[in-house]
């Protein structure tokens, strides 16, 4: 009976109830959306960076990244690559060679970082999208080369021109030279990359360095989004046996990880504060409406209602309100999240980072805890907030309260 009474009381004063529900519901909706948005933002940043040149993770020989010695190819290169490819966690894995060398044009000679890639498989990275002039590398023409815009300017060369690449054989240090033709010029919007990187076919690079079928780097991408955001350590460990080392983007681009941690933590605190604001308003609303009804409670006591009944009634009312608000809030929050997820939030496009543009729209990510924990928290808080006023109501002196002021 109490429950029925509780619900009826709510509906009796529609306006008050609606307002209370509004604050709780919208607050909840906002929490849900903010959380989803944050997740979407993080994911967006991570995928933007990893879908660029870097991938979700890379495998090298230990110490290769520090010393860049060209004889430090991946141990058991081909075998490791096929093992990676076969692993169910992995979506794509591509090999690359990396060497330092010089590039000469008729007018100048400059140092470069020479990357040997497999053009077709390099869909993993957005290199193809950065080509502004000419064409992307083709695997059928071995002596093609792609260079950055700044490098092209320094060399005075353009698409179609001849350049000579000089690099050293890995073990002997003997110089080797080859001619290449510029097939495309890229712009990665990163000073380093645009002025000192060049791409050629991996087979040619291996030939130049005399490393046969070995390579220096394997870039891989995970299947699931979960793995991308939280690269599984056990997986990385399993490929860090022997002399190799598998690192995720977290270690390769620590700045991103730091940025994400920073943002997450700041927003975590922000959400906490948001919650506090909602709780405060909710409490206030409940208090106020309850105190306004003291007259009503006075009469109830006067006709013999027991204090405990009144207390329970008030708590139940609060619970009912909270319940309705939770549903309302969840629907609104979830709704907005889903809608923005589908349309994407576009206004952050064109923010450039690490040579890539954050092109894709941010898609807020719903997640179960948003729909369980937050509503529950609000619900519980509403109930707690109602306890003090409920207790006061229970202790009311009927005659005092009935004396309207």
């Amino acid at each position, binding site marked *: 009976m109490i429950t029925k009474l509780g619900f009826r009381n709510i509906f009796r004063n529609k306006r008050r109830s609606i307002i209370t529900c509004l604050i709780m519901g919208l607050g909840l909706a906002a929490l849900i959306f903010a959380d989803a948005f944050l997740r979407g933002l993080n994911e967006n940043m991570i995928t933007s960076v990893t879908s660029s040149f870097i991938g979700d993770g890379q495998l090298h020989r230990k110490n290769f990244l520090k010393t860049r010695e060209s004889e430090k190819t991946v141990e058991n290169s081909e075998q490791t690559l096929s093992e990676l490819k076969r692993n169910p966690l992995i979506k794509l894995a591509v090999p690359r060679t990396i060497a*330092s*060398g*010089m590039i*000469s*044009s*008729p*007018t100048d*000679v400059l*140092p470069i970082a020479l990357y040997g890639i497999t053009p077709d498989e390099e869909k993993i990275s957005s290199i193809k999208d950065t080509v502004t002039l000419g064409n992307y590398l083709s695997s059928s023409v071995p002596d093609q080369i792609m260079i950055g815009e700044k490098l092209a300017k320094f060399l005075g060369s353009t698409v179609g*021109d*001849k*350049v*000579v690449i*000089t*690099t*050293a054989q890995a073990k*002997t*240090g*003997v*110089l080797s*030279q*080859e*001619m290449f033709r510029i097939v495309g010029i890229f712009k990665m919007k990163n000073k380093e990359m645009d002025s000192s990187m060049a791409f050629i076919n991996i087979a040619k690079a291996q030939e130049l360095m005399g490393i046969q079928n070995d390579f220096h780097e394997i870039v891989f991408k995970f299947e699931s989004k979960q793995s991308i955001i939280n690269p599984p350590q056990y997986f990385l460990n399993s490929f860090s046996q022997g002399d190799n080392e598998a690192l995720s983007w977290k270690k390769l681009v620590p700045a991103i990880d730091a940025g994400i941690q920073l943002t997450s933590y700041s927003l975590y605190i922000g959400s906490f504060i948001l919650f506090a604001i909602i709780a405060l308003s909710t409490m206030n609303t409940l208090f106020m409406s309850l105190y306004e009804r003291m007259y009503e409670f006075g009469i109830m006591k006067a006709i013999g209602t027991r204090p405990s009944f009144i207390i329970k009634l008030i708590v139940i009312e609060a619970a009912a309100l909270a319940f309705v608000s939770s549903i309302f809030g969840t629907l609104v929050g979830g709704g907005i999240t889903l809608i923005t997820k589908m349309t994407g939030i576009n206004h952050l496009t064109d923010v450039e980072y690490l040579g890539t543009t954050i092109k894709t729209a941010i898609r807020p990510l719903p997640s179960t805890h948003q729909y369980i924990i937050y509503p529950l928290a609000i619900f519980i808080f509403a109930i707690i907030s109602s306890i003090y006023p409920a207790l006061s109501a229970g202790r009311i002196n009927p005659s005092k309260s009935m004396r309207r002021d």
Partner: protein
Amino acid sequence: MKALSLIFILLFPLISSAEENIKSIVEHVDKLYRSNSSVAEVEMQIVNPNWERTLRMNIATETMKHTFIDILYPNKEKGSGTLRKSSEMWNFFPKVGKVVKVPPSMMMSSWMGSDFNNDDLVKETTLTDNYTSKFVSGADKNNYYIELTPLKSTVTVWGKILLTVRKDNKMPITEEYFDEKGVKIRTLSFSDYKKFGDRLIPAKLELIPENKANQKTVIKYSNMKFDLKLPDDTFTLINLQRKR
């Protein structure tokens, strides 16, 4: 860039065959500085927008594979040396008293700041073997004008080289380097023809890039001797570190 390789090329005591065969002319130019061994005193003047200086050094060579350079002047670099054996290179600086191995990647950068680079010592391309040649018409009737185009397999940045040779003594006058679009990039001029032993060779080479203001490298030979017996330890690290 090809010029330095010319410097260390053997000149055969060529019989002047009456044959005006284009191939023999080109071959003659190729072999101007080539020998089994050689020793020369060289003065190199380098001019560029940032500075200008003159170096004097002794250069010893063995075929095209080994080179030993010993700097005599200026004083700051006196006693420094460079040893090149096949594709490895070391520098020695008396001030620090240490021999330093030059990393392969550094070998391509310009040697001592001149327009020549270390890599010239690597390339074994010759005009004879790596280029096709044909006569073209030119201004002076007393000269041959030969246009050289690289073979498909030749690793080079040049589109063509125009070689001007004197008809009477087969001495080269200029080598003009063009890129693939036909734009002249640099000119190597030969002059001051002298006899060293029984060879007639241009003792002065001047390399001038076309579009770079205030830039040139001038090499002058003196006291050049060919095919002499060099001490066995000439091209060794020990020799490099020796006090000179």
